[in-house]
């Protein structure tokens, strides 16, 4: 219901991007997996029952692992195995929580969450479910599997994984937090603490990353942390809308970023950050898309990332929660720093570029990346729309 419409729109956008990339590679296996991923996501967003969520996660997890393994290199398969083990552990934790929820409340639909929060057993169940979700969303102490999986997959696959699959778990967490009411506050606090840890740790690793894809993957850890923090401090107040908006904008921007990185790597033949400013190649559309996505992730004014952060900060300042404000700002500064490493090298011009430099040709991948990045930008300009949708969702 809630973010559904927007997410489907995103899926369609990814469709175009995927098609562009895959015609180039000629991989038939991508399509069914892609379809299954989107199908599972839709099932997940629509379900109102914890066991449905478990089965949908299982489809999603397998499809995501299939996408990771598509790259076929040993590193990718190793990452896929670790991913599947982590994902299955997460699902089983979730299932354990569901079983306990059944024992404590006698039913397993999402409406039972409020009832669960009343009893100690129910809170244990919620804790188990949340830790399962945290594994799936790669939240800070449990993110170990994620950078490898996301950075060794093919670009179209990582775009799907990072933009959508990770969000699925966050979405369920959001639903539970909304259903749970005031009684789940300690859990929210834990979420916020883990989120801030993730933000700093992911940003630190992204600052040190040698390869572009790894940087983007670590940046996902950091951004997931930011969203979890927003979820954690939001409670049932209006702030949760900021978290939802951050989710959407991150989905768009991160998909754009991974696709752009894929295109850059295709043109350059590598994705080492230190080798980005080669002289014989002019910056192309992909670099431009990367820059826009970066702006949205950092949260500069016209983008949805900015609106999300702004609403979040405003709410936090009103509540006088200065330590959270500081953390969010620190995270923002760090993300600006690590993204600037890339953007500064991407958008060079003038004397650095040799006069006879080749201009990269336009490909469908560029269009997709640029389109998604623009969508992230437009989402910020027209942010009244998602807020209106979110209002409908709550009603």
């Amino acid at each position, binding site marked *: 219901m809630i973010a559904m419409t927007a997410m489907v729109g995103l899926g369609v956008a990814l469709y175009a991007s995927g098609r562009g990339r895959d015609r180039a590679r000629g991989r038939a296996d991508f399509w069914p997996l892609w379809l299954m991923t989107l199908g599972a996501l839709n099932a997940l967003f629509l379900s109102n029952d914890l*066991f449905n969520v478990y*089965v949908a996660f*299982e489809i999603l*997890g*397998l499809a995501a*692992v299939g996408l990771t*393994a598509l790259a076929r290199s*040993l590193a990718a*398969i*190793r990452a*896929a*195995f*670790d991913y*599947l*083990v982590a994902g*299955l*552990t997460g699902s*089983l934790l979730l*299932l*354990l929580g569901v*079983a*306990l929820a*059944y*024992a404590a409340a006698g039913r397993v639909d999402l409406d039972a969450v409020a009832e669960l929060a009343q009893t100690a057993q129910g809170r244990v169940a919620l804790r188990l479910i949340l830790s399962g979700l945290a594994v799936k969303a790669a939240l800070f102490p449990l993110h170990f599997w994620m950078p490898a999986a996301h950075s060794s997959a093919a670009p179209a696959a990582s775009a799907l994984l990072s933009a959508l699959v990770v969000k699925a778990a966050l979405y369920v967490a959001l639903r539970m937090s909304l259903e749970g009411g005031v009684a789940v506050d300690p859990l929210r606090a834990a979420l916020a603490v883990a989120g801030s840890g993730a933000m700093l740790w992911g940003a630190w690793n992204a600052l040190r990353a040698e390869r572009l894809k790894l940087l983007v993957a670590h940046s996902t850890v950091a951004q997931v942390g930011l969203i979890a923090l927003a979820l954690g401090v939001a409670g049932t107040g209006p702030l949760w809308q900021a978290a939802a908006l951050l989710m959407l904008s991150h989905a768009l921007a991160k998909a754009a970023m991974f696709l752009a990185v894929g295109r850059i790597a295709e043109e350059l033949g590598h994705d080492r950050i230190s080798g980005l400013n080669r002289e014989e190649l002019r910056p192309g559309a992909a670099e431009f898309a990367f820059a826009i996505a970066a702006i949205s992730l950092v949260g500069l004014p016209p983008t949805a990332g900015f609106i999300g952060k702004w609403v979040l900060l405003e709410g936090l300042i009103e509540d006088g929660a200065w330590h959270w404000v500081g953390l969010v700002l620190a995270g923002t500064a760090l993300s600006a720093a690590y993204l600037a490493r890339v953007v500064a090298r991407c958008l060079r011009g003038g004397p650095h570029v040799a006069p006879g430099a080749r201009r990269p040709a336009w490909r469908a991948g560029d269009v997709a990346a640029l389109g998604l990045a623009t969508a992230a930008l437009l989402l910020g300009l027209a942010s009244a729309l998602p807020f209106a949708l979110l209002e409908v969702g709550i009603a």
Partner: protein
Amino acid sequence: MTAETIYLLSGAGLVGLAFWRLGTSGDVIRRVLALNVLAVGIAMLLLAAAQDPATVDPVPQAFLLTGIVVLVAVTAALLALGERIGGDCDE
């Protein structure tokens, strides 16, 4: 001691064993085994919780049937991946 309590304890024991193995082993088959044992333990807990002297609740049983088939599918996928990386999943 009723049957429920006994199987509750044994289910919890299975879950504990599985988590311990999962945390300490890097071997493909051991990990897969641990995950399967974990699922069996959870199933045991769920069934023991569904146990009620008067009636037997069919809904958890249906969950478990679904869960068993899902698990065998995931196990097949895990093993196919594991065979490709050739045994040890530690670096």
